[in-house]
């Protein structure tokens, strides 16, 4: 028995002494990235950031106070997308980045909206600037900044938010109504605060526009069977299925939809369907599914000259197309940070905040400008005015951008059995 206890203590001492320092030639600017690396929104943001940092360092780094300092990306696994893990774990990771790894800026931010909201108070306490790029879409995030600017001015978000995306979807559905005469919608959302809020705003907006919203079903996380809702929608002649499913079980819903050959077009947020590999995973059953990737550039498209360059660079470095929400926004966040630091010519939080509010660069998905009061990226349908969204449709194995019309790559296809 003695030897077991000794080897246990030996194991502990080795781990304690593991060197954690990082080489320091020109003192690098450290970007902390609290991401849930075991999930899509986590690792694709991480890849976006590393790609951007690598490109900037190759191009000579950031000129601050006369010196050329490289970026160093420190990623910590927050596990905050796992259901059984308390948010305190994510906040602990954020603090580890700030205090232990001495991160100057935070990019990506905790992914789950409740963790992101909780982290805002933490950022204020430690006076660290953070750009949230992936995962959290709740309008509450920017509302808090607007209400309490002095306290929460350190938080920025360079990806779209729910209210804006709802407008995009309504305009898309309006176009479909004109072209295909759809007017009956059936809403199925996951039982999560921002998804339910999205479902309710969609229901209100569509009924104003004259649509008949048959029903709204809310599914708790972990539901494995959607047959009752789908059959109900088929029977009542719904021709549009509005979905908001961030949970992995949404693949079950898609498979059932295509097996039942329902006469309705699925549109909305399906976290699982953003990945290029999804097509093979469901054996092509996600054909005709329309998914919103929140920001342009997460799928091959020609929004600005930079978009295709970014897609090629991503494919070369990581071997596959940009995967989903969070890739292009994280990539751009690093570039925005570089522009702001060079404009403020220092890494001090106050100066960088002022600079971030003024910078205006033409990015991967349109013109990137932050709203002074809410620190939210200014969205628009025209890449020259603001950040453009990226709604794609799965067409024979490819993700084709179909919205906004100005940058659309293809037309909306309707399943043959619907005609």
């Amino acid at each position, binding site marked *: *028995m003695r030897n*077991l*206890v000794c080897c*246990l203590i030996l194991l*502990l001492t080795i*781990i*304690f002494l*593991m060197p*954690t320092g990082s080489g320091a030639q020109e003192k690098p600017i450290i970007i902390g990235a609290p991401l849930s*690396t*075991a999930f899509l929104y986590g690792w694709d943001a991480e890849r976006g950031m590393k790609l951007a940092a690598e490109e900037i360092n190759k191009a000579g780094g950031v000129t601050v106070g006369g010196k050329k300092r490289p970026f160093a990306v420190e990623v*910590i*696994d927050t*596990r905050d997308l796992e*259901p*059984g*893990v*308390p*948010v*305190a*774990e994510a*906040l*602990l*990771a954020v*603090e*580890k980045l*700030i*205090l*232990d790894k001495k991160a100057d800026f935070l990019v990506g931010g905790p992914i789950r*909206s*409740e963790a992101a*909201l*909780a982290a*805002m*108070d*933490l950022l204020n*306490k430690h006076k660290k600037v953070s750009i949230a790029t992936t995962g959290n879409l*709740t309008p*509450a995030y920017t509302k*808090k900044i607007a209400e309490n600017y002095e306290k929460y001015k350190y938080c920025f978000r360079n990806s779209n938010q729910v209210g804006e995306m709802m407008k995009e979807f309504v305009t898309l559905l309006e176009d479909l109504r004109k072209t295909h005469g759809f007017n009956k919608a059936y809403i199925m959302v996951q*039982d*999560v*605060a*921002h998804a*339910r809020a999205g479902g309710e705003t969609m229901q209100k907006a569509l009924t104003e526009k004259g649509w008949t919203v048959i029903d709204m079903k809310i599914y*708790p996380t972990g539901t494995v069977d959607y047959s009752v809702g789908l059959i109900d929608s088929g029977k009542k002649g719904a021709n549009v299925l509005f979905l908001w499913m961030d949970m992995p079980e949404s693949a079950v819903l898609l498979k059932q939809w295509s097996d039942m050959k329902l006469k309705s077009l699925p549109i909305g947020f399906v976290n699982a369907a953003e990945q290029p590999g999804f097509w093979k995973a469901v054996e092509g059953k996600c054909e005709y599914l329309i998914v919103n990737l929140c920001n342009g550039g997460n799928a091959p498209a020609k929004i600005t000259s930079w978009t295709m360059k970014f897609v090629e660079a991503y494919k070369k470095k990581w071997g596959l197309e940009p995967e989903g929400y969070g890739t292009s926004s994280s990539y751009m966040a690093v570039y925005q940070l570089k522009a702001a630091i060079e404009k403020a010519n220092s890494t001090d939080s106050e100066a960088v905040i002022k600079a971030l509010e003024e910078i205006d660069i033409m990015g991967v998905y349109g013109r990137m400008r932050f709203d002074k009061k809410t620190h939210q990226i200014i969205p628009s349908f025209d890449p020259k005015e603001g950040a453009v969204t990226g709604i794609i449709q799965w067409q024979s194995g490819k993700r084709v951008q179909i919205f906004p019309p100005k940058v659309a790559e293809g037309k909306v296809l309707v399943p043959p059995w619907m005609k």
Partner: protein
Amino acid sequence: MEMMRRERIDRGIKVRTEGIYAISSIREVLYLLGPRLILIVGMISLPFILELAPYWKRVVNIMCVYSLIALSFDFLANYVGLVCLGGAFFVGIGGYIAAIFNVYLSFPIYVSIPLATICGAIFCTLMLLPCLPLRGVYFAIVTLMYPLFFTRVIEALNILGGTNGITGLSSFPNQYVEEYTIIIVTLLFLFGMRRFVTQDIGLVLRGVKDNDQAVRASGISIAYMKSLAVFIASVMGCFAGAYIAHLYMWSGISLFALDFSIIPIASVVIGGGGTLVGAIIGSVILVPLSEILRAFGTFRIVIYCIILTLVIVFKSEGLMIYLQRKYHQFERWVKV
């Protein structure tokens, strides 16, 4: 040349069986109080030692929170015989009630935490009252289901801020107040419980564990005794919940997360069930270990579980009892 052999003298046997020992010399006093003093001085001085690594102060806070929950599990399971797998239930209720007092009724922090502890404890005891007569595996499974059930109810009814939770709780005035509240409270509860367990009431609770029929036969109602024990355990749990809600200025359904149930149980098992100090030692080992392993990403859970299984299988009595035995024994060479 006379033969020498190692003779092992176990001072402890006399101490353990008798339970009474005369303290004669200062050396004897030191011998007994030594470990306790090291623990107290160590815990009090932690914030100063960690001045140079500020992040680890936060880890110490979390460690104390987990050790409080572990203490309440250890007391309930090993002294009263109620195996409650739902430690997260106490934490969740404590956190939510603290948020309600602090945000909705805007009580200041030094009022909302004690109030939340008491109300939370009353609420938890009332909720657990109907399942007190259950025994063994059944009580464990019901209490495991309580936090999951509350998560789903809050999520379905979208009350108390739904899945977003309640934000904007007021935080502690400054760093040291934050640390010292939790450290002092943990030590208070630790030594308070050790004292309580040897009191007459504590003996009655231990009697309930041995066999409750005998307690019933001597005119004491078990239901009252068990609810008293659950109340004490939930006071500790709810304080931990209220504290962590204020520490992170946020409380939401993930306070009911499974981690708040499993890690305390693991630290009690590793630290040594039955000795209340075991819970503290268990979390002193487990929480910083999980922090160090964070660099490994999800692999750290695997290492965590493997260590836990090894300890359960090979050293099921726990570290504390093993150390106690070793502390009381020593060998010396004796002429044959």
